[in-house]
């Protein structure tokens, strides 16, 4: 049983399609496997279906066709199973979505509290998590509006990690931060991931971020999976869309260098 568990991928999309409530095709025939412990980045422009793909995993959206397997099991359909599934998957979004009427401590302790952990254990875990994401334990009593954007996003990550989920879904978590804070959080994400080895599905439209954080990059375009490549291969890919990304990414650098040379 244990040996077999190693073989199954953490998340698997099998021929998954999704249509919006208005009948628009958002995702068509997606086949994708996310390996245990890897950071798979979903890259693509807005409307390419990245966020939809993410939300199919924790059943914020239901596929029209196909099936999403989480830890080898077809994703839950009954309400109570969906709730259990979600409590085992961390979720971090760009807008963070901290509860404004809860203190930082209560925000982080939310899932453990729902899972009926002992209060002392929750307190200890909260301190541990704040330290893990590089925040002062003194912040537990503060409210989200008293924190900076970067601090809030760190709390968002701590909250997602609280009940020690094996899977983390991240939807442009650093997209709204200033470049320096973003750089800092990306660096911390890498070191965190080296220690924790979570299965991470990470959405971004920023190639730099994808290259930096991803163990593999899945390129999406207009609801279809174009290709899945390791970061190094992505840079040298002959695929036209991947090449276009690399070219756009390099344009700024080239322009700046040319400007400096003149």
């Amino acid at each position, binding site marked *: 049983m244990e040996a077999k568990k190693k073989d199954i991928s953490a998340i698997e999309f099998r021929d998954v399609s999704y249509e919006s409530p208005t009948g628009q095709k958002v995702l068509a025939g997606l086949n994708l496997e996310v390996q245990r412990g890897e950071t798979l980045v979903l890259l693509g422009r807005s409307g390419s279906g990245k966020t939809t793909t993410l939300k199919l995993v924790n059943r914020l959206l239901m596929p029209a066709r196909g099936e999403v397997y989480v830890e080898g099991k077809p994703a839950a359909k009954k309400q109570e199973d969906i709730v259990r599934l*979600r*409590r085992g998957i961390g*979720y971090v*979004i760009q807008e963070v*979505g901290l509860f*404004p*009427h809860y203190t930082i401590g209560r925000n982080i302790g939310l*899932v453990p509290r*729902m899972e009926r952990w002992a209060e002392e254990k929750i307190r200890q875990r909260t301190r541990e998590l704040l330290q893990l994401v590089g925040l002062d334990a003194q912040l537990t009593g503060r409210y989200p509006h008293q924190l900076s954007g970067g601090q809030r996003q760190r709390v968002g990550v701590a*909250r997602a990690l609280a009940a020690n989920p094996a899977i983390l879904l991240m939807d442009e978590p650093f997209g709204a931060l200033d470049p320096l804070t973003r750089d800092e959080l990306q660096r911390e994400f890498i070191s965190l991931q080296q220690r924790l080895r979570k299965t991470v599905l990470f959405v971004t439209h920023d190639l730099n971020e994808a290259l930096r954080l991803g163990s593999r990059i899945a390129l999406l375009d207009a609801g279809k999976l174009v290709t899945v490549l390791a970061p190094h291969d992505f840079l040298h890919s002959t695929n036209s869309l991947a090449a276009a990304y690399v070219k756009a990414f390099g344009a700024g650098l080239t322009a700046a260098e040319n400007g400096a040379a003149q």
Partner: protein
Amino acid sequence: MNLLQFLAQNRAEILQLTLEHLWLVGVSTLIAAVVGIPLGAMIARWPAFNKPVLTAANIVQTIPSLALFGFLLPVPWLGDRAERLAILALTLYALLPLIRNTYTGIRGVDPAVVEAGRAMGLTEGQLLWQVQLPLASSVILSGLRIAIVISVGLATIAAAIGAGGLGELIFRGLAMVNNQLILAGAIPAALLALLADFGLGWLEARLRPVQ
């Protein structure tokens, strides 16, 4: 005899009628809240009910109060006692602000917060009680405030069907062409409305979520 002397002389009756007035407003608002807030939460959750519920509440609001009291008069059990009838009519008028503000308040909660809550595995019930209602509380309270202020004014008309309250003095004063009598009813009613408005406004400001 000046107005103050008149009020002092009749203070026992004025107090009695003020209490009756408060009773009419209190009971009807309580019923309206118990019915209206869940209805508002329901239409926020299932938008299909949105139109019929809000339309019905809106239509009630357009019926002139005197006419509504009249319509309800022949209804069995209800028509037996004017007080029951007045409470029902006031409840119906108080429904719209409560339903609408609950709906608006819940819909106004930051969608990212709701999505994060849902994604963390809160059940729909937990989401409503722990996130949506607390964050909508200041908007719901402002609906309650509007409902109460409207009711205090409307309840004076309940005296026309013999339900008591401060309207008694006003109607008596009108019949007798006695301004002091009219004011003896109108001033306490206005004070009640102002007091409710001020008190609930203060509470509302304290509950408003920090941005």
